[in-house]
């Protein structure tokens, strides 16, 4: 299987650099990184990352995870997703991994988990269905 160039894909998506998304591949496994940026803060008093940014980061991770499978040329579109917030997002770097639960011919179900300094203490999870059909929108 040919792995697509995730760096090249991310560089074409303005939202990825808007919130500061990077990636790392270790032993063929893709991990996404959300660099801490002051502009990602949603609660300046705590301070804590914006829940929407954590959601957006996980949506980015789901898309990158699907693209990394090498099965798609077009960016998958979200259909429905559910985000669970488990802990406040501290003003530090965050990490996320996507696992593809099911890849159908048109729809893929993806699960994402995000953590910060402890992989065993996730700060948020996402379950989403994505339209992956390559032929039409």
């Amino acid at each position: 299987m040919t792995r697509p160039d995730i760096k090249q894909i991310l560089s074409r998506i303005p939202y990825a650099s808007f919130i500061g998304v990077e990636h790392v591949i270790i032993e063929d496994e893709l991990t996404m990184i959300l660099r801490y940026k002051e502009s990602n803060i949603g609660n300046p008093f705590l301070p804590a990352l914006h829940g929407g940014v954590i959601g957006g980061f996980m949506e980015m991770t789901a898309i990158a995870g699907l693209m990394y499978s090498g099965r798609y040329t077009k960016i998958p579109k979200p259909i429905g997703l559910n985000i669970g917030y488990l802990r406040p997002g501290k003003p530090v770097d965050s990490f996320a991994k996507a696992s593809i639960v099911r890849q159908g011919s048109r729809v893929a179900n993806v699960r994402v988990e995000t953590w910060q300094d402890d992989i065993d203490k996730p700060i948020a999870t996402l379950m989403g269905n994505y339209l992956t059909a390559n032929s039409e929108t």
Partner: protein
Amino acid sequence: MSDNIMERMWALAPAFVEGVPQGRALGIKFVAVDRGRATFSLPYNPAVIGDPATRVIHGGAITTLLDQVSGLAVVSATVTEENIKNMAGVATLDLSIDYMRPAKPGETVIATAHCYKTTHHIAFVRAIAHDGDEDDPIAMSQATFMISQTSAKPKKAGS
């Protein structure tokens, strides 16, 4: 009394977006607030494009808009004379979003939220994002929020 509170909420609400770094970065604008209801707008911003082939903005920008407008609906549902000066943030517990169609490139997205139920600790909110016609939504969300101590309804009403 309640009208007076909403007038004060109206004055404080723009800071609820503009005082938030991510709200400012996205360019979210305050439109309206009423008891348990809030409306924001998000002018088209090429910096948050999610698909370069279509120039449609990323779902994450819609997620942030829906989360933020739902949060204000919760605050406006729970605000009292006692806690208005010390409005702590509300925390999202769960956010479900259905994407009906892509946002149109170049168009402003409008999001309206309704907090239809609160308990001592939890608030339930529905929101809709569209670009002018509510009957042709871009996305709809259902969320639950944790109401923090300071913005929760006091156990005993004052007096």
